[in-house]
């Protein structure tokens, strides 16, 4: 302990103890905060599942909504959500990734580029209800798409595009410059370099961003209400022009009813929503694991 005595730091032992104590205290604080979040989530999950689990059965998944809680199900909402999210993925991923690739790799670093970048960051912070209003004005009324799946998917795509673009840009930026230089030095154009090296190397980062964005879209209610997605739908959408409902709308609808049973049904709906989310994340993790292994 006293090996440092007589040096220029005579009190080092005391100071060191103090510093160790501080470090310990801080790490305890951090772990406390971490566990607080986990515990809160646990309580929430417990409450939802204790209310909802008894309603979860095949009948619940395969029935349309009903006035009678024991007959009611979420078939139309579940199918609507799956339709919606597939269409959103189909629209938003190509546009978002292409935009990110253009801004990072293909266009120069001009002032215009910075202006676009700033605007996209701002758009990511715009409340979702505002996107709902745009969707209503442009897609539902302007393009006369009515309350269709297309109108909903386009609105949701607008909502998540900034998130996809920002996440993809970050992923593309994190690809080491040396890889690009290696490609350029072999006589590759920017496009060939981006297509064959930058994009594959940033694949897993882009995927993470895409899944986060889609997860956000799956849980959004406000824009869908704004563009007039229906709350009571006793049929399945058969094409992109059909009207639809979605899980969060169905949940919202059930919660707003006075009867206790409907509240429990809402809890069941939440469990289904969480299950869909979990499934999407699992798929993403599997894809990511596979691509990452390829590049190790």
């Amino acid at each position, binding site marked *: 302990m006293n090996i440092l005595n007589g040096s220029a730091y005579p009190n080092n032992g005391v100071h060191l103890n103090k510093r160790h104590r501080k470090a310990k205290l801080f790490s305890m604080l951090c772990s406390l905060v971490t566990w607080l979040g986990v515990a809160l989530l646990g309580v929430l999950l417990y409450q939802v599942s204790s209310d909802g689990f008894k309603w979860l059965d095949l009948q619940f998944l395969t029935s349309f909504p009903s006035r009678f809680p024991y007959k009611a199900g979420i078939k139309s909402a579940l199918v609507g959500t799956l339709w919606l999210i597939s269409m959103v993925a189909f629209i938003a991923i190509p546009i978002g990734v292409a935009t990110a690739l253009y801004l990072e790799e293909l266009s120069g*670093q001009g002032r215009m580029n910075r202006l676009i970048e700033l605007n996209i960051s701002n758009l990511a912070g715009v409340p979702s209800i505002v996107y709902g209003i745009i969707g209503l004005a442009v897609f539902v009324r302007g393009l006369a798409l009515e309350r269709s799946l297309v109108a909903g998917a386009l609105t949701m795509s607008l909502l998540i595009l900034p998130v996809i673009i920002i996440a993809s840009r970050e992923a593309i930026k994190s690809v*080491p410059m*040396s*890889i*690009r*230089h*290696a*490609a*350029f*030095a*072999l*006589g*590759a*154009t920017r496009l*060939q370099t981006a297509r*064959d*090296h930058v994009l594959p*190397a940033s694949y897993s980062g882009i995927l993470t961003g895409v899944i986060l964005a889609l997860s956000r879209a799956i849980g959004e209610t406000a824009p869908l209400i704004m563009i007039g997605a229906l709350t009571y739908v006793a049929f399945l959408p058969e094409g992109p022009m059909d009207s639809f409902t979605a899980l969060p709308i169905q949940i919202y609808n059930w919660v707003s009813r006075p009867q206790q049973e409907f509240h429990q049904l809402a809890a069941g709906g939440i469990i289904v929503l969480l299950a869909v989310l979990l499934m999407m994340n699992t798929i993403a993790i599997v894809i990511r694991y596979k691509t990452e292994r390829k*590049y*190790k």
Partner: protein
Amino acid sequence: MSLLIPHDIPQAITKHISKPMTEEAVLNLNHVSIKYSDKTAVNDVSFVIAKHKVTSIIGPSGCGKSTLLRSLNRMNDFIPGVSIDGEITFNNQDLYSKGVDAVEVRRRIGMVFQKPNPFPKSIYKNIAWGPSINGFDGSMEELVERSLKQAALWNEVKDRLHESALSLSGGQQQRLCIARALAMEPDILLMDEPCSALDPISTAHIEDLIFELKSRYTIVIVTHNMHQAARISDYTAFMEMGELIEFDVTNEIFTRPKQKRTEEYVTGRFG
């Protein structure tokens, strides 16, 4: 083979060079200055690169030698704010004139970087990618084998061509990068301190390799290892603070330098 007659050689060199160069010049640097925004990195440098010889550029850190090297295949184009003055002619064509496509320049003048930078793909794909995007239509397997043999790597990797290039050691990765550049059959191979990230044994491998390659390729190598320059190069350019202090036959630079600064540097009195 055309003898370089005096008017072909820039004035700055004829003043100093100890004996007339007898080789054909492939690259001709004529009063080259390179600026980063306002900061001058290379100032009025002129010398020639002789065909099928190794030319090394030496000098202390920050003397502009890497900047100069990167300007030889227009890799500086990717750094914002770089401007170049003067003339670099390759087969009598100014690399920076309007009609010249930088992509074509880089296809013909290959580069090996300071840190090995293989693509995170298989060994085979590392070699095959460059030729395939440039429209190579011969047998890719033969080309891969030939390139790896030229880079003295074939025996070590022939049974694992489809494993990731990142599983190779640092020295092997650097030889893979050399093989990758050779697969393009470049006229000139630029090397930017190719051994600085390698251990002595790998360094020796690469130096042997450079010695082998010069019968077929023109090599320009930047190094801050003077012994390396003395061992492997035929001509040496010594740079300091962006200026070319001396350019001569390597042997002359290291045994009878004409400039005091060169002498101080090569004898290790500074730098």
